[in-house]
């Protein structure tokens, strides 16, 4: 099972050179610090954000929903994920602690007041995603409005033994001017394979073996995976200049289950990052 953590370094919109500089610095940092770093196939991300439209006669601000249309080439090359989650109208203040937990459970106090419902995810074929977005924006226009579009094109990826690191320059694409794109920052996604406690057999790890033995799933310690990811990040960013930007961290939520739910958890983590961009 793979567990991932995400880091976002915000960079001012109209300085695409700055983001390229930071990205190259991070790549250099990986290549120097890890002897075993192997470059993987480049990956890409396509993201569209829609926001629900309140009825025209509504007086008080109603809770809004966000809908993300996300395609991650390294997660699933043939499917696009549509994720709808509700979000209350309370504007999130910038938390002093740079950590933002994507887990919407009410126990986290610094979380902006997100609704308790975790939201629904469906996956649709990639070939139909443009038509689906067009349908949502045109035919369902009383209900959904387009907010922004973000892309990562040809992002480098490295495998360093235990970890897989995906880096990317997040670009906002304006529908009119395809040439002039502004940057939204750098994203670094660190994935680590979680060792299940008594499963030494590599072949069975992905075949759903663990699901036969229900109790073992709950014993998987995600805290350790998070600590490992954080340690790697600290090592990566040593010596890299971010300027004024403060990197923000997003982790996968803790109620992770194998199989299809794992992909959903990755999608939720990415969408948590991509939503706050607006």
């Amino acid at each position, binding site marked *: 099972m793979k567990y991932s953590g995400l880091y976002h370094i915000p960079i001012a919109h109209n300085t695409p050179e700055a983001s390229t500089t930071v990205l190259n610095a991070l790549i250099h940092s990986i290549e120097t610090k890890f002897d075993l770093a192997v470059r993987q196939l480049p990956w890409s991300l396509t993201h569209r954000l829609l926001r*629900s439209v309140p*009825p*025209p*006669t509504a007086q008080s601000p109603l809770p809004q*929903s966000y*809908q993300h249309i996300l395609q991650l080439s390294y997660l*699933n090359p*043939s*499917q696009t994920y*549509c994720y*709808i989650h*509700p979000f209350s109208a309370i504007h999130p203040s910038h938390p002093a602690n740079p950590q933002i937990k994507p887990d919407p459970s009410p126990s986290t106090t610094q979380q902006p007041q997100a609704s308790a419902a975790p*939201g*629904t*995810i*469906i*996956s*649709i*074929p990639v070939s*139909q995603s443009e*038509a*689906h977005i*067009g*349908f*949502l924006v045109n*035919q*369902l*226009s*009383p*209900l*959904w409005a387009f907010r922004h579009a973000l892309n990562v094109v040809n992002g480098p990826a490295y495998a360093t033994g235990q970890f897989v690191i995906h880096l990317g320059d997040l670009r906002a694409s304006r529908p009119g001017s395809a040439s002039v794109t502004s940057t939204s920052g750098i994203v670094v996604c660190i994935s680590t394979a979680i060792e299940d406690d008594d499963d030494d057999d590599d072949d069975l790890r992905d075949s759903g073996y663990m699901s036969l033995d229900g109790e073992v799933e709950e014993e998987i310690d995600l805290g350790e995976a998070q600590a490992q990811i954080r340690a790697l990040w600290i090592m990566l960013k040593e010596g890299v200049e971010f300027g004024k930007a403060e990197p923000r961290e997003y982790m996968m939520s803790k109620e992770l289950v194998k199989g*299809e739910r794992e992909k*959903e958890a990755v999608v939720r983590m990415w969408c948590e990052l991509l939503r706050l961009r607006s």
Partner: protein
Amino acid sequence: MHELLLFGQIPRSRHEQVLKILAGVAAMQPRRVLERHIVYKPLREPEEPGAHLRRGGTQNVTSKNIKQAAAKDLYFTQLVQQLSEEDFDVSNAQGSSLTTASDSGAEAKWAYEFRDIPDTGDRGVLVRLTNSTDIMGGDPHAYVLNLGNQFVSEYYLEGHRFVHENVVILLFRILHEPGVRSLETSPRDTLPSFASLQPLDPSSAYILEAKIRVQDLNNPAVLDAGVDELKRFKTQMRGCVEISVPDRLLLDTRVKWKPKTSVQPPARPVQAGVR
């Protein structure tokens, strides 16, 4: 994507004969079609037509002249599930759940369909905009609800499909579970038995739908070619099935505005002279 459509009606007694004739025309065996359609409509009510004109602007001279956008229509949409005879046979709770756990390899069984009201204009065929999105994984029902819809009803479509050059011919009838419909607030978790489904039309007549799908209406050559082909099919079937253009309002999928009546009917008859 757009569709060009023509329809015909066949009484129950002629169904087998028409099926054989269509198999001959299309040079193929009929493909069995069994679908479950779940109908949704938006949670919010449509605005009164003309309400946006009454919403006045400000008298502030310096502000820009903001035109209120015309009220956009709200539509009924559907989730369509492809079924087979075996799905109906399974009597326990295992039969066809609402969520699909299919991975990228399996064929999508659920699709989210939208159909617009057919365009005005008289070409001899109906033209309407449609969109269908296959759902590969996840919970389709929860997704459609989260889009801002509510469940209305569900019905079943049973028939056969042929493909004759560019024309997709569907010979079908609608089935439903009698009596249950008004009580439902969400789709059934398990399928009913096939024998318990009754035709919506008590005479059990079948509908013939001849359809050509056109990707882009901006190409007049393609559009004209499609219209001509559909008309040729109509001529070809003359004598067997009467194929015609129905009224476009019969296929209207928009949600209608219902005025709220402010006058309550009197609880008892008013007697003259009583204050």
